């Protein structure tokens, strides 16, 4: 190993590798970072500045009204209405102001704007303004509208999460996703493990054919199953006079769709267990049921864990099966379905979308980072073996 290591360690080539990998990592991370930061931003700031400026603060233009003529004071030859456009909003400052909507930043803060007819206006950066006229302000001069560009410090808030969890139904969908995922992850394991054991260690006619069938079924597209199963579910539903879109219905669907890969992965592992252990147990008079539950099942834990993670990620992230077998009404919507619905109804409200997206992906991400080892092992067993 040392020779090749050294070969790649030579000077600029190694630096180049470091640099390229760094660029790749940044490119891969930025999209997720974008929604993570955006979900925490104040929703008014989010629409006026890119998320990458979140830590630099932002400025936005707001319309304010100046004071009424009855507040005017005479200072020598001029009459002045004064006050503060920020009105106690702390930590903000004025960058610029203007009197016309087309040019809201015509004057810098602190400048004196000559508005004609002997009228002038100054707004300083702390928000204090002086509105001056060389004659008394008449009743028509009251409450003049001006535009100010307000610099806002970065604001981070959990409000968006509060909104989506309670107001947008994401909280309910989270529960629905858990309701779908937990049984649909655990039920297939046991069924597949028994089948995998039989296909590895029991002799019976048609075994090779069944293994070939399982391997073939791994790649059968889900689309092939949708139409007949939808008809079957509707048929059973009307026969029993019950709704056809139910949680048990989707549990069975996910269990069945995960079954070929489950049997394949578990069989590869269980068939690889040492022959001596199983045969000596047989000689001692243990039945197949005992061998399976006492010896094979405990030994297969890593493979079971690998498959469980796969199935969990697949079920949690699934949209198609949920839409077809559980439906899209609000009470049954899973997280992916809810997010899809929000994309339609809240297309431009990125504070809602980003926060919802984060709620959707946070559980799989935790599972991923916590159990990455098992996931990698499962992937390798699934595709490299014999490849």
């Amino acid at each position, binding site marked *: 190993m040392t020779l090749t290591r050294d070969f790649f360690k030579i000077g600029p080539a190694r630096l180049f590798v470091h640099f390229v990998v760094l660029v790749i990592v940044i490119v891969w991370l930025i999209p997720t970072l974008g929604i993570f930061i955006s979900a925490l931003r104040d929703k008014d700031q989010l629409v006026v500045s890119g998320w990458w400026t979140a830590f630099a603060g932002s400025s936005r233009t707001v319309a304010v009204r100046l004071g009424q003529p009855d507040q005017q004071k005479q200072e020598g030859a001029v009459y002045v209405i004064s006050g503060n456009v920020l009105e106690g909003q702390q930590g903000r400052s004025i960058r610029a102001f203007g009197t016309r909507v087309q040019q809201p930043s015509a004057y810098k803060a602190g400048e004196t704007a000559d508005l004609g007819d002997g009228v002038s206006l100054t707004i300083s950066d702390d928000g204090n303004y002086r509105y001056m006229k060389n004659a008394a302000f008449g009743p028509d001069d009251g409450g003049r509208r001006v535009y100010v560009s307000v610099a806002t410090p970065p604001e981070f808030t959990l409000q968006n999460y509060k909104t989506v969890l309670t107001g947008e139904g994401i909280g309910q969908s989270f529960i629905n996703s858990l309701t779908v995922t937990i049984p649909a992850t655990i039920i297939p394991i046991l069924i597949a493990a028994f089948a995998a054991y039989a296909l590895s260690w029991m002799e019976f006619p048609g075994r090779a054919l069944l293994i070939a069938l399982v391997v073939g079924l791994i790649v059968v*597209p889900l689309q092939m199953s949708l139409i007949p199963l939808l008809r079957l579910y509707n048929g059973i539903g009307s026969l029993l006079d019950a709704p056809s879109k139910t949680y048990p219905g989707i549990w069975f669907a996910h269990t069945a769709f995960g079954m070929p890969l489950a049997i394949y992965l578990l069989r590869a592992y269980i068939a690889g267990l040492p022959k001596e252990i199983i045969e000596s147990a047989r000689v001692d008079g243990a039945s197949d049921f005992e061998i399976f539950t006492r010896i094979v099942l405990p030994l297969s834990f890593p493979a079971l864990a690998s498959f469980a993670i796969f199935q969990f990620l697949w079920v949690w992230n699934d949209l198609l099966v949920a839409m*077809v077998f559980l439906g899209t009404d609000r009470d049954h919507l899973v997280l992916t379905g809810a997010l899809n619905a929000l994309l339609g109804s809240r297309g431009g409200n990125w504070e809602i979308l980003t926060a919802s997206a984060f709620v959707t992906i946070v559980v799989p991400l935790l599972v991923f980072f916590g159990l990455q080892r098992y996931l990698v092992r499962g992937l390798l067993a699934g595709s490299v073996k014999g490849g």
Partner: protein
Amino acid sequence: MLSQIVSALGVVVVAVFACSGYFYFSNKILDWSLPVKDGDIHSAARNLNRRAMIRPWLFIGPALFLLVVYLVYPVVATLILSFYDRSGEKFVGFANYQWALTDREFRQSIFNNILWLAVVPAACTFFGLVIAVMTDRIWWGNIAKSIVFMPMAISFVGASVIWKFIYEYRGGNDVQIGLLNSIVQLFGGTPQVWISVPFWNNFFLMIILIWIQTGFAMVILSAALRGIPEETIEAAVIDGANGWQIFWRIMVPQVWGTIAVVWTTITILVLKVFDIVLTITNGQWNTMVLANLMFNWLFRGGGDSGRSAVIALIIMLAVTPIMVWNVRRANRELGGH
């Protein structure tokens, strides 16, 4: 809400007990109904044989039932339904297939699917291989791998939201809050509604899948690269091969089998791509793909199971060569067992 979770957990407990109960009691009943302890030696031997014949089917039974009902039967049923009308009641011969050949949307979907097939598996495998080779050479390679691998855990819908935010376009004089348009503006370009640019919008959708799947290719190929005997590479180094030559002449040929596995796995995934197109364009602006067209016909105007079935069959047809290859590979493995 809490009661829903409790009932879900309750279901798990019930299901586990029901499964264990089925396996336990079916085995017990088998042993009880075919006794081997008492009676004469001949019937005991016969019963023992019968037990050995029946027991595997008890073990496989539930799995086989699910496979047949949810996968085998539907394949046959879809094939039959493709010859029937929209409600699946009247036989129409090849009418649905004829419709498909002349339908503009169907042709568009076929074209787009071919485009996806040409780009995504190749891009994922290439990036995966390059990243695997590079991360294996640096001390923080595992962290880099984790980050590239991470999108695998994100749902297609979640990834679509993430990328839609990057492609976001704001009209008028509004500040561009989408990263892509902001970068375009920085270099003096004009912001665009990227997802509606004809033809090229397909590529903006593909990028999402490439972002998700490159990690998968990387993990598998990285393991295969580690399996290359060190002597081979050392010999090449001694002979004066440079990094480029080692990559193309030594590493790539050695992991050729794995590249094929990765390529086919991603190919199957691409043929089934649905969520990304649904959430970002829903097939508008000429981005329709087969899986989405099939889904649309399943429900469009009350649903047309015949046309939907034809589209599903086309996807199945495209997967079949890979299926045959996989089965043959598995059989070879078993033969050498």
